[in-house]
């Protein structure tokens, strides 16, 4: 295979006011023709800046200060901007993470693809039309002749990403840079897009530089893997070798921090601390401060590359004297696992703390002059489940299936249309604001985005005290002196902050001074401050990096163990579910299609949708390749759900009866049940 892109010792800095950020610092990599090269790393390690450097599309504050980027042996940093324009979109293309923002909303998708063709091929008229047709066909957009004249808002997220790919392919590039191409997409859609990219790579024989934080995606896509940390590559290897035998302590930790079923009884391995700020000067190994195997040399001397095999290289002092050290290293690794605290499974308390029955939430669609109701968005359509004290129920589903609405209507943040929410012996639906106030302390919520869930203008102590003050948690509201009270409140905040693993002195600071993981801890602390019995976690880790996610999951698990909390865990991430949940409920289009104990459902999924969902999750264990069952199409709109079983248009086993009426409940054992006609005939007990 011949070399296509060669980056040598690239250094990019970003000027921000007083500080200078070395976003990329001495990065060297090689990408061969027709090969997928995955650049893996946590956020803030310089992956995207690397991509933008290759495209020479850095923001104004960015500057490439050293290094060469050779495309086919020609240094593209030396060519003038005009020539670079001929290169972009033609030989190197890029697709971005957020398809919603990457397309111009006032141009038809055909025009947007046509722009690239006009620019690089001087095509016009019917020739352009034909090319656009072929491209859209190639990326699997049905009915391209009609769709090419439609606007981006008429496409779903997955379809938009296909259009983006079509645009990127229009120039027939030799190198496609994909910056987190599927992060914003649902798993079933992600599987479709990854499939598409793989097929296109085979047929077009182009190289892909895949930037991602998801090791599962890497395992499915990559030929070569490079792990990036704090602006430099610390390990590079072919995929098989990397996944069988990751060498760098950081890579190992990344694998260890992935949640999963086999780790249920243990705490997840965490990488202490955060990615170091790139504005500081590094003297030794950049990972030294967070590394468990750190020794003196690590702090003083930056490690060189050590070759483990022909293509596998690592930047770590541990491999200096190859064999000896690695063996001791392996031992310590084993020990650290065995000494990890084993969390016993929580007590079995059968009485349900929360029982939701036939919860329904219909949002009216109004139209016309008089705002008459012309239809309903059936966001939640008859959902029932129960959570016992100290247990975790995971509500799983793709975006738009109504899982967040369930959470909010349990909290009475929105009034459900019908159904009942029975919590701790009391009916919550229909309570007035005042009556609900007495229940508020028992039910709390942790949100997905730690950046928007904390008021940027309030100090941490004020954020945490807000709930305490609003609900008068301090119990006796006797007339103590105000100074005494405020000291008591401060102590309380200190205790809560320590409980979530933050030093008490942080309470005087503002949210912007914290990283994403720390913010999520603060959000959890805020919820804990009022001593809730049930915590609704609405995708609490999906905005976080893997290592930080492990920290938060550990925290949630230990809190559950110590405080006997119940969780309603709303997520789309099945590996997190495997790790944390006791029971699972799979939602599709406002209804629960399958629920049961986590082992039953995940080992033996009955509903075709659950099966598809499980098979779509990219797995790092490539040996156990499952029969991949890929769904076609997108989730239908909840305003007009398909008649009969909601899933039938995408279901590979659809039968005529599926189109007529919604299937009834089929129980497989006392807890495991599903709504599907495949089983109703045989097992209707």
């Amino acid at each position, binding site marked *: 295979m011949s070399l296509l892109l060669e980056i040598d010792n690239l250094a990019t800095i970003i000027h921000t006011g007083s500080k200078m950020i070395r976003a990329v610092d001495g990065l060297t990599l090689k990408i061969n023709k027709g090969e997928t090269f995955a650049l893996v790393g946590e956020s803030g390690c310089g992956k995207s800046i690397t991509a933008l450097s290759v495209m*020479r599309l850095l923001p104004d504050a*960015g500057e490439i200060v050293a290094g060469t980027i050779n495309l086919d042996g020609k240094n593209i940093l030396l060519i003038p901007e005009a020539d670079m324009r001929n290169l972009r979109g033609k030989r190197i293309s890029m697709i*971005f*993470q957020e398809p919603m923002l*990457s397309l111009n909303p006032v141009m038809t998708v055909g025009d947007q693809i046509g722009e690239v063709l006009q620019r690089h091929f001087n095509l016009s008229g019917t020739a352009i039309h034909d090319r656009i047709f072929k491209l859209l066909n190639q990326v699997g957009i049905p009915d391209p002749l009609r769709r090419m004249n439609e606007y981006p808002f008429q496409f779903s997220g997955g379809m938009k990403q296909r259009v983006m790919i079509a645009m990127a392919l229009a120039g027939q590039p030799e190198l496609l840079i994909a910056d987190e191409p599927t992060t914003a997409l649902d798993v079933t859609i992600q599987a479709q897009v990854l499939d598409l990219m793989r097929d296109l790579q085979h047929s077009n024989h182009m190289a892909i530089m895949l930037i991602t934080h998801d090791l599962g995606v890497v395992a499915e896509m990559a030929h070569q893997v490079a792990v990036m940390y704090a602006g430099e590559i610390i390990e590079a290897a072919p995929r098989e070798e990397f996944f069988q035998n990751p060498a760098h302590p950081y890579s190992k930790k990344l694998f260890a921090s992935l949640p999963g079923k086999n780790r249920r009884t243990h705490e997840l391995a965490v990488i202490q601390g955060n990615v170091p700020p790139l504005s500081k000067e590094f003297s030794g190994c950049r990972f030294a401060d967070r590394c468990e195997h750190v020794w003196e040399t690590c702090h003083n001397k930056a490690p060189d590359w050590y070759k483990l095999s022909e293509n596998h290289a690592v930047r770590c002092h541990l491999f200096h004297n190859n064999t000896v050290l690695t063996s001791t290293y392996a031992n310590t690794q084993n020990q650290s696992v065995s000494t990890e605290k084993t969390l016993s499974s929580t007590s079995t308390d059968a009485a349900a703390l929360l029982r939701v029955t036939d919860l329904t939430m219909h949002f009216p669609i109004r139209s016309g002059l008089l705002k008459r109701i012309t239809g309903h968005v059936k966001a939640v359509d008859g959902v029932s489940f129960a959570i016992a004290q100290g247990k975790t129920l995971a509500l799983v589903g793709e975006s738009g299936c109504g899982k967040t609405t369930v959470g909010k209507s349990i909290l009475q943040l929105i009034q459900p249309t019908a159904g009942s929410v029975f919590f701790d012996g009391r009916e919550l639906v229909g309570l007035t604001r005042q009556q609900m106030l007495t229940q508020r302390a028992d039910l709390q919520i942790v949100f997905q985005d730690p950046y*928007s869930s904390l008021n940027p203008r309030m100090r941490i102590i004020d954020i945490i005290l*807000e709930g305490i003050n609003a609900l008068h948690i301090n119990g006796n509201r006797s007339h103590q002196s105000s100074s005494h009270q405020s000291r008591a409140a401060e102590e309380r905040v200190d205790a809560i902050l320590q409980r979530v693993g933050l030093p008490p002195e942080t309470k005087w600071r503002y949210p912007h001074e914290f990283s994403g993981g720390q913010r999520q801890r603060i959000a959890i602390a805020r919820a804990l401050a009022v001593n809730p019995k049930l915590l609704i976690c609405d995708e609490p880790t999906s905005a976080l990096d893997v290592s930080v996610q492990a920290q938060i999951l550990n925290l949630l698990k230990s809190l559950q163990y110590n405080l006997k909390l119940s969780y309603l865990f709303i997520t789309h991430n099945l590996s997190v579910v495997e790790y944390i949940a006791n029971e699972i409920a799979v939602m599709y289009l406002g209804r629960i299609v399958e629920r049961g104990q986590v082992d039953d459902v995940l080992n033996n999924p009955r509903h075709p949708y659950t099966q598809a969902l499980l098979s779509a999750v990219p797995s790092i264990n490539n040996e156990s390749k499952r029969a991949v069952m890929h769904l076609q199409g997108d989730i239908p709109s909840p305003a007009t759900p398909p008649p009969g079983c909601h899933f039938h248009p995408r279901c590979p086993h659809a039968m005529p009866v599926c189109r007529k009426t919604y299937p009834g409940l089929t129980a497989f054992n006392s807890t495991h049940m599903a709504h599907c006609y495949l089983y109703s005939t045989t097992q209707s007990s």
Partner: protein
Amino acid sequence: MPFSFVILWTDALVFVLVVIVAILVRHIRRHEHLRTPWLRVGKSASGMAALTVLLFFIIIGLLDSIHFRPALENRYNNGEQVYSAEVLSLFDVIVNPLRTNVEKTYSAPLAAYLYAKETVSLPDGHQVREFSRLKFGGAHLQHPETQRIDDITARTAAGIGLGFAAWMLLVALLALMLARHHQESFKKSLSSIWRGATEIPWNAVLITLAAILTLLGIILMLTPYYHVLGTDKVGQDVLYQALKSIRTALVIGAITTLIMLPFALLLGIMAGYFQGWVDDIIQYIYTTLSSIPSVLLIAAAVLMMQVYIETHPELFETTAERADLRLLFLCIILGITSWTGLCRLLRGETLKLREMEYIQAAHAFGVSHWRVISRHILPNVMHIVLIATVMDFSGLVLAEAVLSYVGVGVDPSMISFGTMINAARLEMAREPMVWWTLLAAFGLMVALVLSANLFADAVQHAFDPRIQTLSEKTSIMRRSSNRKNSVGPAAATPSSKKIKHTPPA
């Protein structure tokens, strides 16, 4: 007592505003997240230069807002002090000769003779028509024809010298202060000011100050002997009028904002937060209000007020009080007609904010609506309020000029840019033309509005989250490439000069 204080309505409001600003400054200094954007304003050279000019205007305006009635010689029969019917301000006292040196009629800037011929009877009984000497302008000269130019040049030079000396003193003081603050040598801090290496662009401030002080020096040296900007129809000094107009303009700009803010804040946030019928009602109110031609509304209201004032003369002790009430009323009516724009902005922002997760979290705690509004929403829309008010300020100053010109503005006895322009309008048609009144009003108004606008620009730049994104986003450097994409033009047009190359080793 040699005088008795008079507190006019607008004076009271101006000082309330000063107190509010002082409290806000204290509050902002204590909170780091509030201080940072202001520090960014402090780093803008144009903003700081504009602020220096604005400060001079504000100082004049404040001096002109301390009113009193001087005591007269005679006393009432019961021994009570009699006070003059004329209300003076501290500023009037400071620039006393300007106010009292009144000529007969028009005279050109720096002239020694009147602008119009008049009939003078000579000692021998003859009568001639000639340009007679001014009572004050150039009165010290024996032969104005020959001496005037030299005299003016000499005094101007002296004024420049004086201004420069004062400026040097200020520079030295500043450098000394910075040197003490940073613990470095006087020379070093001086050079860092000169090179613009200081945190706050002191060099821009100092250059502005140099210009202002030189002008002040010249005016200071010339005014005792000349009318620097000439006199108007009744012989009053135009410079004095122009300086007095500053207060009127500032009062209109500032107090109108003070009156408008509660409407805009309360209604805008309520509409966005509560939605439903509250939103409907508020939207109807402001849609209706903004579809009435505001000049008509203002004219009707002001004329009604005028009638009321004229039929109740017993309510006002002095003419100044009468004029002041009319000014206040103009501010109120301008405030009532101009809150809709900000209200609309705030409604939109609140609609966005109320879906934020921290507000949802507050709801989950059962925090009351008013607490959510005051603790979560209000602090997060303040940047919009600030940008809108500084932007509106210059618009209101201009609006006053237009309204007074039309005749529905301030009381004719009150000096303002509008009344000056109105008076100058007729004289533009004269032959030879009387141009200096208009020029004076125009020049000062442009200086005021331009500096207010430049300052508003700097404020917007520092507070608008969309503008400051670049530096912040890169510093956060989150993985989402869409954010970098949204930097838009910056990313789309990278200049090749940004890329520096090191020769391959």
